């Protein structure tokens, strides 16, 4: 990356980080709500143990998935839709900011907030005394979740290029909530009806959460990695198509 590109990325990233922290609704839905839910469930069920794993620790993977996905799936797409509606993306094109830089900045901002959400959850679990995992395992969970959020960011951007702001917000939330519910991100998957467990096998969020849990010594890896790679390929294709037909 040349000096000019680095400076452009810097200014874009700075604007995107401000867009989250200064916008009350994204702050609430993107950060406070996932962390709040995590704290609530941790206080209620954190001391329980399932399959030899403390529930409070498992929640770092499941609610962590929910938290990271929320920022990754909502923020970049809503941002793209807003920028298009304002003519802001057009302004950036005129001022010779490559679209790749703008999008990477949006994705990076979401990723950084994802890191923040995970740190808050980890700190919460530790404070409640329900965090029973090595630092290395927790770091692996974080890396898996952040890497696994990429297809959700791509999908989000695809929606942002296709729909106006209001429609993008509604659509992304309408997809996010059932995904969280049916993938066992709020209630552990083994407590959900068997029909839901069957549906979950087809949801990328389920595979991401399971991959997170696997880092804590709970289950297999390969099948979830394959599912997520497939999701990423599909999401990248959808995003590319949506961008090509977008009006900027």
């Amino acid at each position: 990356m040349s000096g000019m590109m680095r400076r452009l990325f810097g200014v874009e990233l700075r604007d995107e980080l401000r867009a989250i922290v200064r916008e009350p609704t994204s702050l609430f839905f993107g950060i406070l709500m996932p962390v709040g839910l995590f704290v609530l469930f941790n206080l209620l069920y954190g001391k329980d143990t399932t399959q030899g794993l403390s529930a409070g620790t498992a929640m770092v993977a499941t609610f962590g998935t929910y938290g990271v996905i929320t920022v990754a799936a909502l923020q970049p797409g809503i941002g793209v839709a807003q920028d298009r509606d304002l003519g802001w993306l057009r302004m950036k094109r005129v001022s010779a900011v490559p679209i790749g830089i703008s999008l990477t900045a949006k994705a990076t901002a979401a990723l950084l907030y994802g890191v923040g959400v995970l740190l808050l959850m980890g700190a919460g679990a530790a404070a409640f005394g329900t965090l029973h995992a090595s630092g290395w395992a927790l770091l692996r969970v974080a890396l898996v979740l952040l890497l696994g959020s990429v297809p959700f960011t791509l999908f989000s951007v695809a929606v942002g290029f296709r729909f106006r702001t209001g429609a993008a917000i509604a659509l992304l939330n309408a997809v996010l909530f059932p995904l969280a519910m049916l993938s066992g991100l709020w209630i552990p998957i083994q407590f959900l009806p068997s029909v839901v467990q069957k549906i979950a096998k087809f949801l990328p969020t389920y595979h991401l959460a399971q991959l997170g849990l696997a880092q804590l010594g709970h289950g297999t890896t390969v099948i979830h990695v394959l599912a997520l790679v497939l999701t990423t390929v599909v999401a990248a294709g959808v995003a590319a198509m949506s961008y090509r037909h977008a009006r900027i």
Partner: protein
Amino acid sequence: MGTTQAVLTVEGLRHRYGETVALDGVDLRVDPGECVALLGPNGAGKSTLVALAVGLLVPQHGTVRILGGDPRRAATRRRLGVAQQTLGFPNTLTVNELVTGAAVRGGRRPAAAGPILAELGLTDLAPRRVPKLSGGQKQRVQLAMALVTEPDLLILDEPTVGLDTMARRHFWQILARRRAQGTAVLVTTHLIEESAAVADRVVVLDRGRILADAPPQELVSRLPDRTVTARTGMDQAELERLPDVLSVRHEHDLVKIQTRSPEDLLRVLLDRDPALSELRVQDAGLEEAVVALTAGEEMAA
């Protein structure tokens, strides 16, 4: 003029959207320090011409060059300052952040924002976010964002809409300073009389073609109509029978007579009414000249 490099050169530009012809062979040249006003009714092709000049569209036929460079290239576009009336701002950024961001995007240091904010009277507003600004203040923020990169060519879309008279004067003074340093200005506007006052050249665009490209005074003098104003005791019917009178109307206690040969009219007028006073002969305005141009085109079409 022949030796200096043109800032903007447009040659043989044709552009269509499906069946609709937006530009039908446009040639245009803007030199350093020049201010060119682009006039024309809605749908004349102004937006298409601007979109091509700023590199948002690929020319279908013809060429656009900015200081010899293709506006599709990033390096060329960084020499542009653009203010578009339709641009909205993100609510999450302050005035200072917007102008600083524009400086960096244009390849300048963030510190370049300070003097521009001061020049445009935005220093006190710098920490405020956009939703708290008035329409005129937003307009000034746009201009600050366009000026902060020290562009060679400013492209301004209806820049003074929403500004009061004082702000408007201040705006043109700021532009005059830039022009003295060689910045060229292309301004699209509906305010014909305003462009007559500030532009070196007026380009009238209609149905994708340039009907006129000349200094405003020359456009006006091309139109042969003159207005003779006077205070007279003669009545309407008598005035209308005078030689070469096109129209007569009363304004307060004065009468305004439209004619194409004021000399003949005046001889008769002074002869018939010895008590005639407050006599004045005026050119038609630029507005009448532009209307006559576009109306003539409509009749030909």
